């Protein structure tokens, strides 16, 4: 196998864990967080007047990106997963934007984030997104191909299902 030249930006410190989806009663609000424990916690707990119940867990991982030139490291603890534009409904705004970008060799992915404790999505800082983009683009070897990971400018986070986000849900289904 040929040794690829060492890339400047690299995914490092991969920590395995779980994406845990939980739901509150009585509000029926849902939120998700990352758990790096060896076992996803499944016990219900109270927070104010809400009781949070475990709903689902998927195997996942968190990682950092290291700039090998400076040794700086950024951890992506807010990143839940990436959503490929083509996994969205054809004709939707982002799908259409993604098609245009695709025709010039750019693959658009949306960074979907974990929820903050109040249930609203976290945000990935633009500077960190740039690192993430460089880390993935440094790995690409197909000439002319580019990855563009965007924040959720389009408000799609609340409309997508976990099946559309790159996560390992349903791996353990024994159907």
């Amino acid at each position, binding site marked *: 196998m040929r040794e690829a030249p060492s890339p400047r930006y690299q995914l490092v410190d991969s920590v395995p864990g779980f994406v845990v989806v939980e739901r509150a009663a009585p509000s029926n609000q849902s939120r998700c967080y990352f758990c790096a424990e060896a076992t996803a916690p499944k016990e219900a707990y109270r927070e104010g007047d809400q009781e949070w119940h475990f709903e689902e867990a998927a195997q*996942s991982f968190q990682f950092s990106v290291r700039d090998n030139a400076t040794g700086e490291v950024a951890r992506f603890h807010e990143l839940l997963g990436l959503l*490929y534009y083509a996994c969205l409904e054809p004709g939707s705004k982002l799908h259409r934007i993604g098609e245009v970008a695709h025709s010039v060799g750019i693959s658009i992915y949306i960074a979907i984030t974990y929820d903050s404790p109040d249930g609203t999505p976290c945000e990935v800082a633009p500077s960190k997104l740039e690192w993430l983009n460089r880390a*993935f683009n440094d790995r690409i070897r197909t000439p002319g191909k580019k990855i563009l990971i965007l924040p959720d400018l389009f408000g799609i986070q609340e409309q997508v299902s976990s099946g559309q986000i*790159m*996560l390992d849900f349903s791996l353990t289904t024994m159907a």
Partner: protein
Amino acid sequence: MRLQQIADKLGLEKLTPVFDQDIDGVYISDMISDVIANAKPGNLLVTVQVHANAVAAANLVDVCAIVLAQGKRPSDDVLRMAEKAKITVLSTPLNRWQVASKLYEVGLR
């Protein structure tokens, strides 16, 4: 080794046109997170995962092709998505173990 050569040697069924290129190693997994974290550009991805996200992850890390083991077939939508992203999808009735053995026999490492 070229993708087309491997497809011919193992008798893989072509579910999309073959976007021929050099293969750099093999990665076997059905887990999207594993593929994103560990698969390398130019890898041949062997999986039974036929979900659209397998194509999404394959495109993200620029693997050269997806080999679906155990005769798995994705939906036409997923195949169209792969073809559009210029990711070759091949299928074989062999299981992952058998695919791995054969790929090793023909010289992939």
